[in-house]
């Protein structure tokens, strides 16, 4: 039998969610203390959405007929889905590199806030990874 990635336990998922919440809380507190209130709010909302989405996919992965996205999060993805995830990660890396070049050029020509530049690069990676995975896993 082909071994899938190690299935994650409910306790493991709970620990992951708790650790994620803790990291978000620390980052939001640091941002708040530094006076970046809107940045802190973004961390809280973004972190909450990310953790809730991940937990929802994890719970879905424990039921039969789960989509590839849920199986990947739940640790039950097979070799094809893991390969697609790796390709999506590679696409995301290229997209982030391209975004970094664009951000560097824009920053050099017009003064762009560092925070905005980082956000553009991060979102380029996030959307490329999730979008590419969703498309490739259904086409391949």
């Amino acid at each position, binding site marked *: 039998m082909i071994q899938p990635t190690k299935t994650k336990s409910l306790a493991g998922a709970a620990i992951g969610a708790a650790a994620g919440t803790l990291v978000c809380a620390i980052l939001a507190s640091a941002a708040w203390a530094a006076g970046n209130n809107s940045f802190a709010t973004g961390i809280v909302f973004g972190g909450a959405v990310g953790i809730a989405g991940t937990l929802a996919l994890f719970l879905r992965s424990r039921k039969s007929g789960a989509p590839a996205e849920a199986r990947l999060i739940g640790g039950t993805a*097979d070799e094809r889905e893991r390969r697609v995830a790796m390709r999506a990660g590679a696409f995301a890396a290229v997209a982030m590199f391209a975004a970094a070049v664009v951000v560097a050029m824009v920053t050099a020509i017009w003064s762009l806030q560092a925070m905005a530049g980082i956000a553009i690069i991060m979102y380029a990676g996030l959307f490329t990874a999730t979008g590419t995975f969703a498309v490739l896993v259904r086409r391949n």
Partner: protein
Amino acid sequence: MINSVRALREASGLSQAALGESLGVSRQTINSIETGKYDPSLPLAFSLARFFSCTIEELFNDSANQD
């Protein structure tokens, strides 16, 4: 790559989901293999061959690469 997975599976009276469960892969992966969209890894190809009691050469045909 052309393969006879679908023919052998249907001859065995199995669904894609049942075959996938037997081999530890998803139904979608079995479908992708059958339609030639995905070439399985060597371990999975061996598992398929073992499951259908045949050789990998009997299961997969790379005639497109042979002159």
